[in-house]
């Protein structure tokens, strides 16, 4: 068993047919009899006291069934993954334009929106806090009573000052990164229903149905068992649906009205109210010896988390962890601040703090290599951590380390190997070409000190197929296909015999989030645990039915047979036959499996989640062409070289890789949610610019496998890393082309042009 028949194969997505036929519904497609439309009254100011809320006019309107305010929140009026500091409905203060002040349920969508406008809220505006560094000053107005510094982390190892003193090269720069938007296809949306016993079901885009269930239950003051959360695989998330979005609003309105309620945020509302990537200002000072050995890194990160905590603290922690990247860095002084402002909301987003610091670090690395006259790839190889090395945070790299393998593959890829030749052939005299490289490691799982577990169920269905339940939601990334492949190989059946159940708090066991590059690793290990138990059950049933000893039962394709039996004899049972036997005996053939994440040999006191033990690795290379007259940058080609440990589904990894490259390219060149004085200036896709298919470069994905022994079939997570180093690979390529260093992304045409002008 465990032969790789399905693992490693380019299996078509198991949900492909449902998606292309439209059978899989978006939340906006859901409809129930007697359903109401919900709408959310958002704040009128980025920062204000609420003096009075009068809902009487709205309540009197035709078609309005309920109007709720903070007075109608039965339980805790707050939510938040780490600290519940975000009000469900604001009572006395609003802290950003997306703050929810009231909810309406009405018989029509238009009626609900009209009712919002009939709610009178009296505000007393407060000064707006919109600069994170100013926000850190004692004299600054406070977004929260405890002060604006939500989280502070400081890590120091070795003798940084001595290292800088003795170094041959020291580079020091300040980097700025934008407020990237997840830009998922469907906005935060869902439907809640309630039955006659008061059980509530919430359908929504979710990255952790069990935590949503808990947060809903807490706000409603209800037993979580009475609440079911079902996540949809349509619509996407990228971290933007990790925190509660509309779930509590839906549940409150369903509870109050006793009817199904649907909320679909408009894109504008989503942009204003929803999560973003933390804009960061990063000061980085990096030193190396004359022979190219990296000596020290001093980092100061200030992250703008906006109005509420959500996962801002952990994001800044991970920024600190990833700020020394793949390198041996014996002396470090790393400091991070996570700061409240009135600038929207920032939290989880694919990459989780690494995107910002890896952009800074990989630029520093190129600068140092250039100063020392060293090849940029060789410089990285020389300094890269190997298995057994001590990483910047002081923990030992005991798990598989793929940097060297990905760099080796990069050195052979066409755009790197032929870079001088490709550089010399720009498409016009005023255009310049460059090739850039960058690499990173990316922590998988939640890290030290956080509960990080997996669970799976396997049930033999009457027809001989297996239902495999893993709660980590499918949110478009393809994890259910990978789960089905791993289950098929663990059970000796085909992928077509697996029915996946995912993202449902009632029909699966809690297996944690679909975040943190963790779901394939976690779910896969839990499936293997469940499969081992399932096989024992199957062997028991078969042994009894065949009158053989249990040790005599061997697993083959699609069933079991008695080992000693000569070929052709009828001492074989298919899974369908075993199912029938089980049914006849009234036996429910079901197994549960579990898994606990291994963690690093030492944690960091006070900073939970740090460090990680298992990392995925990736090197990415970009070929760009810069128009020196207009500053426009075109990414012509990109090569993405991930180390997923083991590629469960190479086609799935390629798809992740290609999507990641384009997302990281948007981050490098175009994307920024502009907020001025607390007001979002780019509230729609006409002003928030993401790359289109025509902007995407030709992307080649080269999968390098450094199997991770603790992973299922050797796998580890790759969902985040794929969007990270491409950003500095592109900005380093701009430097290679023009001599200009990009320290402020996105590198828009204006910024590049102005930098070129300054450089000239």
């Amino acid at each position, binding site marked *: 068993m465990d032969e790789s028949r399905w693992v490693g194969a380019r299996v078509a997505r198991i949900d492909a047919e449902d998606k292309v036929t439209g059978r899989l519904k978006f939340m906006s497609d859901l409809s129930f009899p007697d359903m109401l439309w919900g709408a959310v009254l958002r704040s009128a100011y980025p920062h204000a006291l609420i003096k009075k809320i009068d809902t009487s006019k709205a309540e009197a309107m035709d078609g309005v069934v309920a109007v709720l305010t903070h007075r109608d929140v039965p339980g805790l009026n707050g939510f938040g993954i780490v600290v519940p500091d975000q009000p469900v409905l604001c009572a006395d203060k609003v802290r950003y334009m997306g703050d929810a002040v009231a909810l309406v349920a009405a018989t029509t969508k*238009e009626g609900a*929106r*009209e009712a919002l*406008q*009939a709610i009178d809220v009296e505000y007393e505006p407060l000064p707006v806090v919109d600069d994170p560094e100013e926000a850190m000053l004692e004299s600054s107005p406070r977004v929260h009573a405890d002060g604006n510094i939500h989280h502070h982390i400081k890590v120091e190892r070795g003798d940084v000052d001595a290292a800088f003193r003795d170094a041959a090269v020291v580079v020091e720069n300040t980097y700025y990164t934008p407020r990237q938007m997840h830009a998922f296809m469907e906005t935060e949306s869902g439907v809640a229903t309630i039955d006659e016993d008061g059980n509530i079901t919430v359908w929504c885009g979710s990255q952790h149905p069990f935590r949503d269930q808990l947060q809903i239950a807490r706000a409603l003051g209800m037993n979580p068992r009475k609440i079911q959360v079902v996540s949809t695989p349509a619509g996407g998330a990228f971290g933007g649906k990790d925190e509660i979005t509309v779930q509590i609003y839906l549940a409150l309105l369903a509870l109050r009205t006793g009817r199904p309620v649907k909320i679909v945020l408009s894109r*504008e509302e989503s942009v204003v109210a929803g999560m973003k990537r933390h804009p960061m200002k990063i000061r980085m000072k990096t030193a190396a010896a004359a022979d190219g050995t990296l000596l020290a890194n001093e980092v100061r990160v200030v992250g703008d988390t906006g109005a509420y905590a959500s996962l801002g603290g952990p994001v800044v922690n991970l920024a600190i962890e990833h700020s020394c990247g793949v390198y041996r860095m014996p002396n470090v002084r790393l400091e991070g601040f996570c700061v409240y402002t009135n600038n929207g909301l920032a939290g989880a987003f694919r990459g989780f703090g690494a995107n910002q610091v890896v952009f800074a670090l990989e630029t520093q690395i190129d600068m140092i290599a250039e100063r020392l006259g060293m090849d940029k790839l060789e410089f990285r190889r020389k300094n890269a951590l190997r298995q057994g090395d001590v990483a910047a945070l002081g923990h030992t790299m005991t798990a598989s380390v793929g940097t060297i393998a990905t760099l080796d593959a990069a050195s052979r890829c066409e755009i790197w190997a032929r870079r001088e030749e490709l550089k010399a052939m720009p*498409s*016009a*005299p*005023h255009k310049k070409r460059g090739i850039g490289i960058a690499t990173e490691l990316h922590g998988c799982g939640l890290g030290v000190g956080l509960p990080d577990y997996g669970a799976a169920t396997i049930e033999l269905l009457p027809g001989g197929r297996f239902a495999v339940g893993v709660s980590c939601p499918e949110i478009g990334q393809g994890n259910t296909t990978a789960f089905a492949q791993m289950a098929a190989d663990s059970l000796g059946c085909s992928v077509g015999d697996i029915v996946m159940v995912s993202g449902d708090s009632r029909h699966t066991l809690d297996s944690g989030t679909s975040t943190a590059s963790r779901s394939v690793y976690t779910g896969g290990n839990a499936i293997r645990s469940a499969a081992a138990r399932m096989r024992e059950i199957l062997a028991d049933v078969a042994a009894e039915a065949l009158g053989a000893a249990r040790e005599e039962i061997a697993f083959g394709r699609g069933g079991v047979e008695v080992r000693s039996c000569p070929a052709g004899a009828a001492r074989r049972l298919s899974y369908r036959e075993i199912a029938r036997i089980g049914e006849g005996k009234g036996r429910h053939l079901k197994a549960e499996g579990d898994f606990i994440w291994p963690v690093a040999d030492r944690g960091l006191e006070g900073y939970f989640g740090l460090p990680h033990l298992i990392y995925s690795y990736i090197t990415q290379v970009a070929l760009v062409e810069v*128009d020196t*007259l*207009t*500053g*426009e940058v075109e990414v012509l080609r990109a090569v993405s070289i991930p180390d997923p440990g083991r590629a469960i589904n190479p086609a799935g990894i390629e798809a992740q890789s290609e999507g990641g490259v384009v997302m990281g390219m948007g981050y490098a060149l*175009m994307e920024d949610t502009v907020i001025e004085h607390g007001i979002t200036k780019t509230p729609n*896709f*006409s002003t928030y*610019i*993401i*790359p*289109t*298919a*025509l*902007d995407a470069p030709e992307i080649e994905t080269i999968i390098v496998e450094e199997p991770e022994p603790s992973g299922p079939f050797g796998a580890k997570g790759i969902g985040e890393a794929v969007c990270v180093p491409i950003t500095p690979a592109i900005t380093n390529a701009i430097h290679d082309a023009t001599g200009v260093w990009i320290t402020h992304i996105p590198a*828009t*045409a*204006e910024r590049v*042009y*102005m930098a070129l*002008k300054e450089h000239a």
Partner: protein
Amino acid sequence: MSPRKPGYVVPETLAEASEFLREHAEDARIIAGGTDVLVQLRRRGRAGGEHPRWLVDISRIPGLAGVSTDSGTISIGAMTTHEEIARSPIIRKGGPLLAEACASVGSPQIRARGTIGGNIMNASPAADTIAALAVLSTRVRLSDRMGTRDILITDVFVGPYKTSAQPGEVLMEVYFDALAPTCGSAFVKLGRREALAIARLSCAVVIERDDAGRVTRAAIAPGACLPMPARVESAEEMLVGKVPDEAAVDAAAREVAEEMVRRTGVRWSTDYKRPAVEAITRRAIWRALGVNVE
């Protein structure tokens, strides 16, 4: 309270449309492809502003669609979509830069809905087709039930999103002289990305030369950077009568940029726009001269 939805009328004839539009002057708005009108309605609804009370759908009025040619004049009906224009063999031969401009509009979906008439009458300073129409010396035909008047494309506009059309007037068609085979032309656009990009800057150029290579006629119109669409005659004059060399092209391109600054004043964006306009104008001129400097 959000404004109620506008009423929707679908006149069968110009007279009917014109009568209705005149009667409801301030309260009615023509809808063609809807790619601008619907977005504006939605935005206005959100901002709590007033909707027009009536939308007048002109798609059933006869004679408003299609490209035709007659003794060297190319006519395009107001309801002709960007997609039809971009694909039209007549346009690709007699006004290829207009085909390029239409092909650069939005996305396939927008090009399949959006019309040339709508692009003109919406009067956005960033409209992709207007600079191209300007250098083709396009005339537009405005009709109402009383009659018809033909005016130059550049006289349509009186300000951003404002036209000189009178209540009751409907843009029927646009027409221009097909470019002679000796003419070169180009449309160059600078957007924030390769598709679905509103032009930040654009430039349309037509150049005709004699057998000696001397420029006999030049038309240059920058787009998206002037308060109102216009040709820059002072730049055109720098090319006429010359066999264009690098110095002449550079000078004309610089003049376009200077003219932009003269008309808009110096703004925060000028540091970038001045050189960028110069660069794309230079590129458009060279392309019109048959030299591809992409």
